[in-house]
């Protein structure tokens, strides 16, 4: 894989992008199997499943940044990931 050396892949970043890709594939299959429509939730926005995924991912990015900026790396960043998961579940359930 010398030709991809310039991309400086690490197993951590490869895992990160693989998870994103799997989420997108999973969402596509979910939408095919069980088509959704728009709905208005607690945010008073009309959102589709894709919108809710976008809001979840964007929120997760900011939760991690806020953790790093306000708390640092101790305690571990996994806590931010856990908060992001809870947040995403909340967005998918109520937003």
């Amino acid at each position, binding site marked *: 894989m010398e030709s991809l050396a310039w991309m*400086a892949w690490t197993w951590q970043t490869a895992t990160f992008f693989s998870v994103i890709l799997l989420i997108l594939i999973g969402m596509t299959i979910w939408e095919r199997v069980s088509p*959704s429509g728009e709905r208005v939730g607690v945010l008073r926005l009309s959102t589709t499943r894709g919108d809710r995924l976008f809001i979840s991912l*964007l929120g997760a990015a900011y939760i991690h940044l806020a953790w790093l900026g306000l708390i640092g790396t101790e305690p571990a960043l996994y806590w931010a990931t856990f908060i992001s998961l809870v947040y995403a579940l909340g967005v998918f359930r109520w937003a």
Partner: protein
Amino acid sequence: MNKPFDNRAWFLVLPVFLLVAFSAILPLMTVVNYSVQDTFGNNQFFWAGTDWYVQLLASERFHQALGRQLLFSAIILLIQIPLGVLIALCMPRKGWTVSLTLVLMALPLLIPWNVVGTIWQVFGRGDIGLLGYTLNRIGLDYNYVNNIGDAWVTIVVMDVWHWTSLVALLAYAGLRSIPDAYYQAAKIDGASRWSIFRLIQLPKMKHVLIIAVLLRFMDSFMIYTEPFVLTGGGPGNSTTFLSIDLVKLALGQFDLGPAAAMSIVYFLVILLLSWVFYTVMTRDENERQGGAS
């Protein structure tokens, strides 16, 4: 009630998606990879984890550049959107002057960024520039090289000169799409000029104004060439916007890891603010759809 969509049309955008993947997604992935590593060149990388992000988020230099960037974009939107709409309202709707006006309005948009910077650099000079010389002659102590206020005013005016016509042309396109029947009905009802603007023209321009706001926000938030040519980020760091700071970090200091982390945060700020603008500006429509479903 749910409204299912037919998603097969997405296959039609597959070629564009592939193109974007090569031109944007792969470079973005690379930037993410760089942001968690350190390098001294020669394709050798060392794991740094989240160190660059921690360092960046605590950096006074980054906070100041971000603050300047947000302030600049806010000023630009507050000036260019109302001014563009006002110009569009004043533009002729019939006759030979329409084509002439459109050509004149499009002219600033055709000038490359670095040329715009050079034009204003010369224009603002106190010794040979028409603007700088005139202002100094009438007693104003204008010097964009040394004075922070003058530097900011010059950059803002330069950007307004360069890009307001884009907003005006978009708003004009929105105005032209309004059928005459609306104006005739307003005339019969005895509506005032303000009422016509508020109740007919502004709602009909809404979609193009959303595009104008998003385009101008993203563009002003990423501005680099014009201020770099005009002031080089000075005096001091007073006009060092995020993009200028990023280039200094990546190319000047060759700190690719910290620069990549900064790029990611920069990208996330643009993504969030663009989403907020879009969501707020289409909120009424969303509520109508939500109410109908």
